[in-house]
């Protein structure tokens, strides 16, 4: 088959949250198998919170204990600036500040940024695919969960609400509005 788009890497950014995660997975498969494209990640602009996508989602984290009080967590009370790194392979990482472009944070568990994540974050650095990245303002240069990498478009505008990144069913990083459980 003629595949003029083969090898092109794309990032699916769904502005109207009408597709379920299963639909997105089908779309991803279609893009990969029929067109030979590489799907880097999926973004769901899910402002309303009642979209099919967020309802249908079968969350891999459901099997995880809801209370994480036995997990180790490191709290960093400052902004991670360009050239600075913060690694915490033993557990979760909470940043009481921003992660600026050129700054990098990595954790064995979740990465929570209580400011703007504009740099790079790696959750589940030892391979834990149920780890998530949450930020009040998620406009990263790069996200990584386990060995899955997502490079959102540069110059991405902030959406104005907290977002969560996780590995979806189809092994891509999905970014959507953070909704409390």
């Amino acid at each position, binding site marked *: 088959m003629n595949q003029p788009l083969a090898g092109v890497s794309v990032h699916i950014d769904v502005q109207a949250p009408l597709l379920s995660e299963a639909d997105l997975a089908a779309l991803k498969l279609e893009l990969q198998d029929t067109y030979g494209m590489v799907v880097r990640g999926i973004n769901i602009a899910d402002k309303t919170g009642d979209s099919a996508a967020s309802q249908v989602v079968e969350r891999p984290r459901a099997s995880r204990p809801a209370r994480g009080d036995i997990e180790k967590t490191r709290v960093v009370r*400052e*902004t991670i*600036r*360009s*050239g*600075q790194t913060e690694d915490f392979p033993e557990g979760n990482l909470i940043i009481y*500040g*921003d992660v*600026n*472009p*050129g700054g990098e944070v990595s954790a064995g568990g979740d990465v929570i940024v209580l400011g*703007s994540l*504009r740099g790079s974050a790696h959750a589940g650095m030892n391979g834990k695919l149920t780890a998530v990245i949450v930020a009040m303002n998620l406009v990263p240069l790069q996200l990584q969960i386990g060995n899955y990498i997502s490079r959102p478009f540069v110059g991405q505008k902030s959406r104005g609400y907290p977002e969560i990144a996780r590995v979806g069913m189809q092994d891509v990083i999905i970014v959507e509005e953070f909704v409390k459980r």
Partner: protein
Amino acid sequence: MGKVIVVTSGKGGVGKTTSTANLGTALALIGKTVVVIDADVGLRNLDVVMGLENRIVYTSMDVIDNRCELTRALVKDRRVEGLTLLAASQKNNKDDIQPEQMKAICEELRSNNDFVLVDSPAGIESGFRNAAAGADEALVVTTPDVSAIRDADRITGLLQHEGVEPINLVLNRLSPEMVRKGNMVSKDDVVALLNLNLIGVVPEDRGVISSTNRGIPLVHDNSSQAAQAYMRIAKRLTGQRIPIPEIREKGFFSNILEWFSGNR
């Protein structure tokens, strides 16, 4: 006891030397005693921007090597009372000076001056470390473009690590027209990212370049917006509370006036 303030940025060409020359002069114009130190060893140019190049006999290297007393190495600026320059050696390189030696010089100078401004070289290596060694405070200079801001952020992290505090931000070469057209990062976005206290905004001004070339800091003539911006920053450094005005976009009329006055 005076204050030692390092003027730094990470990136080159963003206005460290221009800011040091103008703020040093502005502080002297409002009655303070000031020493400006060129810490850009090997590439000195603060003396050129200040028009003092032909008066330099000794440099900081001569002081460090005990060839000359510190007070004798200071070049007096004859245009304003209370302003002196300590030049950098052009024959040496940045690794010929140790941070402790710079610190000792700053300590001695602060005991009989109100302000010691240290013009830092670009980069994050030994030249920057020397410039920052004796500093209590810092002025981080950036222009409204992504790479300068990134470097300013990097330098800020290093300064915080050294315990330099406060760190104030100077946003240089802001052009309201460019921001309006979306070609430049806005003032608010720069401040949001760097999360520093903004001490002043200096507009893009062609007068800066001609003043650099003539060796007369812009603030000697208080007519331009850039000169006024530097005067206000100097006053803020002395503790005065002056709001930061929005920069006016130049109208057709002022452009015509400038054209006729040859101030292009």
